[in-house]
């Protein structure tokens, strides 16, 4: 094989991009259109930077890693939440319409304040291990079955891009809803035997319309998650956990059935 362009060159792409600067409310939100000639392996990261550098230097958007691991660049791509950096224009039609993610505070144009949302979520769900005993620097690490470690890692893979929140029918109308990412975060810690929180503690956070019972089961979160997190399974695990019924994570893993005690 060779690294030949994976697509036709020379297609003219029309970008219609949402514009609004909250510090200049006198300018109404609107769409600006830009045209670019498509290049091989062009991603929305490359395209948006070209638009900024060649057409409009004031255009706001967020990228950091540009390799789909940092979660900065979630946006609405032709109406669907996704990571701009890992979206090849080859997979999109000639007209590409970009909006900021809904459900988050707008910074400007395509940039939203996911950082603030996720910090608040982390505080609310207390997204840290509630230690059972202080760290002992002299001791070797506590043992953990590797299957359980892998199951925890599954939930840990969330990159906080906000696509699931933007796609969630409930999160868009109820700002108190902990959201798909929040539920996934709770499941990650609820599964971790190093965390001292009990079923009763989790019940307080989970068992309400702002928690796991707020989910209407539309499951757009599961459809749009760029990391293919097993959100459906995580929610099922949490529902069972609130009933005190979960004896094992539903990420069926051998050898951890009794880990939750």
């Amino acid at each position, binding site marked *: 094989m060779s690294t030949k362009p994976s697509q036709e060159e020379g297609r003219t792409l029309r970008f219609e991009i949402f514009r609004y600067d909250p510090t200049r409310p006198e300018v109404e939100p609107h769409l600006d259109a830009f045209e670019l000639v498509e290049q091989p392996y062009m991603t929305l990261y490359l395209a948006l930077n070209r638009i900024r550098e060649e057409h409009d230097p004031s255009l706001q958007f967020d990228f950091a890693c540009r390799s789909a691991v940092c979660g900065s660049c979630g946006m609405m791509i032709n109406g669907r939440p996704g990571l701009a950096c890992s979206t090849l224009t080859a997979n999109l039609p000639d007209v590409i319409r970009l909006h900021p993610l809904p459900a988050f505070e707008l910074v400007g144009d395509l940039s939203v304040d996911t950082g603030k949302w996720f910090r608040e979520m*982390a505080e609310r769900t207390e997204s840290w*291990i509630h230690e059972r005993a202080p760290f002992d620097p002299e001791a*070797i690490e506590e043992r953990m079955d*590797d299957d359980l470690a892998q199951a925890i890692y599954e939930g840990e893979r969330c990159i906080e891009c906000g696509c699931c929140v933007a796609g969630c029918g409930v999160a868009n109308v109820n700002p108190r809803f902990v959201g798909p990412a929040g539920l996934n975060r709770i499941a990650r810690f609820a599964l971790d035997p190093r965390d001292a929180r009990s079923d009763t503690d989790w019940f307080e956070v989970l068992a309400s319309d702002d928690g796991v019972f707020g989910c209407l089961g539309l499951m757009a979160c599961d459809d749009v998650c760029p990391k293919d997190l097993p959100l459906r399974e995580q929610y099922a695990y949490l529902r069972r956990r609130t009933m005190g019924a979960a004896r094992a994570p539903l990420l069926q893993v051998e050898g951890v059935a009794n880990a939750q005690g």
Partner: protein
Amino acid sequence: MQGARTCDVLVIGGGLAGERAAIEAATAGLGVVLLSLVPPRRSHSCAAQGGMQAALGNCTKALGDTPTLHFVDTVKGSDWGADQEVARIFADEAPVAVRELAHWGVPWTRVRPGRQTYFVKGERVEIDEPEDKAGLIMHRDFGGTAKWRACYAAAGTGHAVLYAVDGEVVRLGVEVLDRMEALALIHEGGRCWGAVVRCLRTGTLGALLAKATVLATGGHGRIYGAHTTNATINEGTGASLALATGVVPLGNLEAVQFHPTGLVPSGILVTEGCRGDGGHLLNARGERFMVDLEPEKQELASRDVVSRHMMQQIKDGLGVESDFGSHLWLDLRHLGEAHLATKLREVKDICRDFLGIDPAREPIPVRPTQHYSMGGVRVNKDGQAYGMEGLFAVGEAACWDMHGFNRLGGNSLAETVVAGRVVGRRVVDHVRAKSLDVSASLATAFAVDVEKRIAAWTGRPAGGPSIYAIRDAMADTMLERVGVFRTGDELEQAVDTLRGLEADLARASLRHTGSGSNPELTLALRLEGMLRLSRITAEGALARTESRGAHARLDHPDRDDDRWLCRTLARWPEGAADPSYATEPVGLIDLPPGDRGYGRATTREMSQSIDAHNAAVPEGFARAGALATAEPIGARMAWGAWREVDPDRPVPDRIE
């Protein structure tokens, strides 16, 4: 400017090193403000895929591992450019740091007892893992190490570690100011008192006054533009801040690591774990060239060595031609779909998302790509910047200097948390001993300077050169002239070009002069510093007439321990058109300079005895501007411990 705020500790940079230092300070009860360009979890630490080196010795291929072996590998890997005391501190503390991360919830991959299947040097092998180690932290093989030592969390080690550490930051209630950048350090008479900051949401300026300021801004790979694995935010802001004081030196900027496997064309990193797990490098003929070139380590020789062999293949016409230049192949097909879908899932995803290929079926186009800045803000072993009390630096932003001229894979992630712990403690000591003794007028004066800098940009008439064109020219120059292989002629050309670009920047104009969040202005302000870092990199490489680690001079192929067993220091005096250079001793030497066991370079030996060299180190450091350390130089050395693990190493007669 909005009003000045005060705090005990200002940490600039929200990646692992900054957050770990912040935790140390916050745990001690200090008031910490953490500044970050992006929400901390989006810092580039999250992108580290492969692992974190710590000598726990848990799996069969790691049995018998010790911090001393880790120390030896690190110093060899550095091509003896490291400060050996710092390498020792690092290797000794890495196991505790990794276990602490387990305590904080990192889902480290664990030892599965019994018969397990791995790939070693491309061969499928079965190894029995010990029952008594079941469930302890597992290791994988990385380049340049004697044992399997890299601890890892599936394929997302940096991500998992950053999330656990940030969880602690949230738990401790550390105030995080994200989308905020520092534009100048506030300092007077060799003391630093915080920074002038700019909000990236609104463009508003402010001042943060602090008893201690910690630079934790990561590397500066973006001086290579898109020819780097680094995130877009790795623009050397911390190094630029330190340099702009005119007092603090940068160490060894010419020491630039190229990662063997950057994806073509995007530059995205494909982890060393691929080769650790048995991936092959192939040339255009489909040959595994590393087997003949490095029979012992093969694909797992250290990164500088592998990168050079790859570039040589390309120079010899054995690269694969493409629209994006020549490249080689990373072949993972023989590892199988199941392995790729679990242990290397992120790699599989990257190939799908950015190339539209499946690595289980097709080889991956790769070439050496700028990856890591061994150089940075020169600090002593306490993380204290040279010549500037109250200023500290940690992680990739710093030249602490455990990496010397080549960093081993998995040592940077480990450095972030180890240095965060070690330096964080020194920051606490410093703050407890100091009161905030700074006038508001000093902060105002620095803020006014920043306002003038911004006004100069926004007020400059239109029609000057584009900052984007200058950035691209800088990046191409760095790649083509200050890359894997270097020559005096090309480096001189690079210096000329970079000087010209500095002149261009002085008359460049913005097309968008609006206040508020102005991404073009943001880049313009950073580009001033990046051009300086580029020039110091090129001039340091030009001056260093030897080859050491990642610094490979075709016109000076030998390592020269007689002249160049030293560190380059660069300062940029205020108002000067050019930087000034000095050198200092590399540090105390315990493991005598010798052959690395791979790379097969020749060496010109020291004419001075090691004892004489060591005797001159404390004074050499002090003369170079190092501040006093909490413990004397050498207090943490474990003299001669390496003899237990490397008894065959020839010791020069003159040592005794």
